[in-house]
């Protein structure tokens, strides 16, 4: 895995420059998820201060995973035209923990939306 061993990976825009979304996926800002990943890795069993190289590598791994996931979902969803949430749910159907977690998250999102609607409609009473 030459890309991860070098540590620099793909060419990256300067981090401080702008917050514009990159056009292509080859140019990617470095350390997009650094802060959150540090907390996440600690939560999952790493040291309270993970090594920066580990965090960078983990970010690469996660981004590559998400990229593969999205590409596969696009392959599936292209038949239907747009990319939808069901494509992702279909892809992780074998992994029960992920599937359950996603259905839980989605139902929670629905509940929160309903709750917010009720709350806002009550405000104007």
């Amino acid at each position, binding site marked *: 895995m030459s890309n991860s061993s070098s540590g620099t990976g793909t060419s990256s825009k300067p981090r401080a420059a702008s917050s514009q979304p990159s*056009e292509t996926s080859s140019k990617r800002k470095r350390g997009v998820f650094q802060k959150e990943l540090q907390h996440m890795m600690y939560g*999952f069993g790493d040291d309270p201060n993970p090594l920066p190289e580990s965090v960078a590598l983990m970010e690469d*791994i996660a981004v590559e995973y998400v990229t593969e996931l999205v590409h596969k979902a696009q392959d599936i969803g292209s038949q239907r035209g747009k990319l939808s*949430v069901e494509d*992702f749910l279909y892809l992780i159907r074998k992994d029960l923990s992920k599937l359950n977690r996603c259905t839980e998250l989605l139902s929670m999102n629905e*509940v929160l939306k309903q*709750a917010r609607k009720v709350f806002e409609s009550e405000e104007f009473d």
Partner: protein
Amino acid sequence: MKQSKDPFEAAFEESPPESPVETEAEADTPNPPSSSAPPLPQPQKVSATKDKDKDKDKDKDEEEEEEEDNMDVELAKLPSAGDPHKMAKMQAILSQFTEDQMSRYESFRRAGFQKANMKRLLASITGTQKISVPMTIVVSGIAKLFVGEVVETARIVMKERKESGTIRPCHLREAYRRLKLEGKVFKRSASRLFR
């Protein structure tokens, strides 16, 4: 906004399915101390698997979302999926945590990918498709669980090699390789017919 007394209650500010609707009706209810009986039956019961690490995978992303949107919306403090048995079990486990364990658990619950960053990443991958919020939520959840798998496998690798301390990139790479062998990492195996 987290007026709970115990640290794990604070880390626990989960929104179980039925409670938000109830506390909404009461407008600004003061933080009820872990009311046990959820009044409304959960219409769509999500059956989360009951292993310990799956128990950890409760609404961790929800916390961050709630913290953004949770201005006046005071959600009840029921930790589990609304089931009093699960909640009692969780409370029993959590009450025996050490400081170290508690802080790690709190990090575990609260950490998550930022929606804006994930949205940007997804948009750059798919091209210019509009990314809906549920999609961001789902992908963030999947990615977080994947990170968890890699880190846990890396710890197993470290134990096998009898090393200790911080996780190093070599452990992560070995963990990633093992996950690939198990088939948990997606491979581009779509139609290799016409290469």
